[in-house]
């Protein structure tokens, strides 16, 4: 018997789950509704009929219960704005009583005194707070509401409470005039910051088109370089890496079939309408199952098989970047249903890897 640290547990768990096809991590998009109206939001749906299709707390718990019985030990609760789900607390407290580690994703508006006090009774393992601006004007432009002061105050409250906070930034055409300032503002809080550079396709029903808010590759690369400057990536010391992962750290060579990431291998997502996917935003025409209809086990097994059988594009097999670049169906969006690449995504990664290599040489 041995007591292990949280980090060791994470590594062991993911290795064991990968080997045994255990769905150890679940991402739950509790609601597509939100108290903001960001112009680039891929999920936020407004149609009032959505409310009728949304899962109740009891339905969420029945899926989660089966997931726990199949080995789920950690979840991400997201949305829309997860905290607006009418049964949020029922779901949260159920998971805590089951010993499931919770990460919460929020835009920060509802992380007020009352909710933070309630959360601190059973603290989540972490909270990812999205930042959409660095002042009232940028918040108005991107999200349609001036909630800058509220979010700033709530971020500070969460940090002071001792929560493990990460700030998330998703640059888009709407944020463009302020992107660098938003990153600098995020840095001022002194907590980890994640800058997502690639945007994903919007839900069809959202009435939004990625093309309307996507950024040119040049700008994406500039943002990536700036974020690397502001938030230098921390690499694990070699000895620590070997101790945790063993000596063989090289990932498998590209093969005829199968994805290498955690999607559908150790991780799954359930969207607001009850659809199970290998990860959130994974293209539904590749695979999509309904655990409330088919049962969790059947849905998981089919998702797991689908990612193991997925054929990465032929182009990747001869691509000189294929030892560094992992084909991600979510990023390649609609192209991935036909096992193809989105040329723009390839260009972004190829140029990014060239830049990394050059940095190493310098």
């Amino acid at each position, binding site marked *: *018997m041995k007591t292990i640290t949280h980090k060791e547990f994470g590594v062991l768990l993911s290795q064991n789950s990968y080997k045994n096809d255990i769905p*150890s991590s679940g991402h739950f998009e509790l609601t597509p509704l939100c108290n903001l109206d960001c112009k680039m939001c891929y999920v936020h749906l407004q149609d009032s009929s959505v409310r009728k299709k949304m899962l109740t707390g009891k339905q969420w718990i029945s899926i989660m219960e089966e997931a726990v019985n199949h080995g789920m030990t950690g979840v991400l609760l997201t949305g829309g704005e997860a905290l607006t789900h009418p049964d949020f607390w029922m779901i949260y407290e159920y998971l805590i009583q089951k010993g499931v580690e919770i990460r919460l994703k929020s835009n920060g508006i509802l992380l007020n005194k009352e909710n933070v006090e309630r959360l601190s009774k059973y603290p989540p393992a972490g909270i990812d707070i999205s930042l959409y601006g660095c002042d009232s004007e940028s918040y108005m432009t991107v999200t349609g509401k001036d909630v800058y002061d509220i979010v700033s105050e709530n971020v500070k409250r969460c940090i002071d409470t001792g929560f493990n906070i990460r700030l998330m930034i998703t640059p888009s055409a709407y944020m463009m005039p302020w992107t660098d300032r938003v990153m600098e503002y995020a840095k001022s809080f002194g907590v980890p910051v994640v800058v997502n550079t690639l945007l994903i396709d919007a839900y069809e029903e959202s009435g939004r088109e990625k093309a309307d808010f996507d950024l040119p590759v040049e700008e994406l690369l500039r943002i990536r370089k700036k974020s690397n400057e502001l938030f230098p990536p921390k690499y694990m010391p070699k000895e620590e890496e070997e101790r945790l992962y063993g000596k063989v750290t090289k990932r498998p060579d590209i093969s005829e079939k199968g994805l290498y990431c955690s999607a559908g291998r150790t991780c799954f997502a359930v969207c607001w309408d009850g659809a199970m996917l290998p990860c959130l935003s994974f293209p539904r025409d590749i695979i999509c199952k309904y655990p409330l209809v088919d049962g969790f086990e059947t849905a998981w097994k089919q998702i797991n098989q689908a990612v193991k059988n997925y054929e990465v594009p032929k182009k990747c097999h001869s691509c000189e970047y294929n030892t560094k670049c992992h084909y991600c169906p979510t990023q390649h969006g609609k192209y991935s249903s036909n096992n193809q690449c989105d040329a723009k995504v390839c260009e972004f990664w190829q140029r990014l890897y060239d830049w990394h290599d050059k940095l190493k040489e310098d």
Partner: protein
Amino acid sequence: MKIKEGFVLRKMPGMNMVMPIGENIKTYKGSVMLNETSAFIYEKLVEGKSKEEAAKALTEEYDVDIEKAMQSVERTCADFIEAGIAE
């Protein structure tokens, strides 16, 4: 000798873990990894069985005599106490 409140045993293929739950997540950092035998003993203790009963159950489940089973239970219980999951 009993297992403390605020923990749950999670069993999955290849891995058995004792994890904190409820308010205990604030105070107990980390997880305890159990092998098959310790997980078996843990479950018996949670059911309210004594050490002797747990050892007897071990002999029924595994090919082991009562003396060895009792030694194993004693050793495992000492480990549980050291890890802070039993008292």
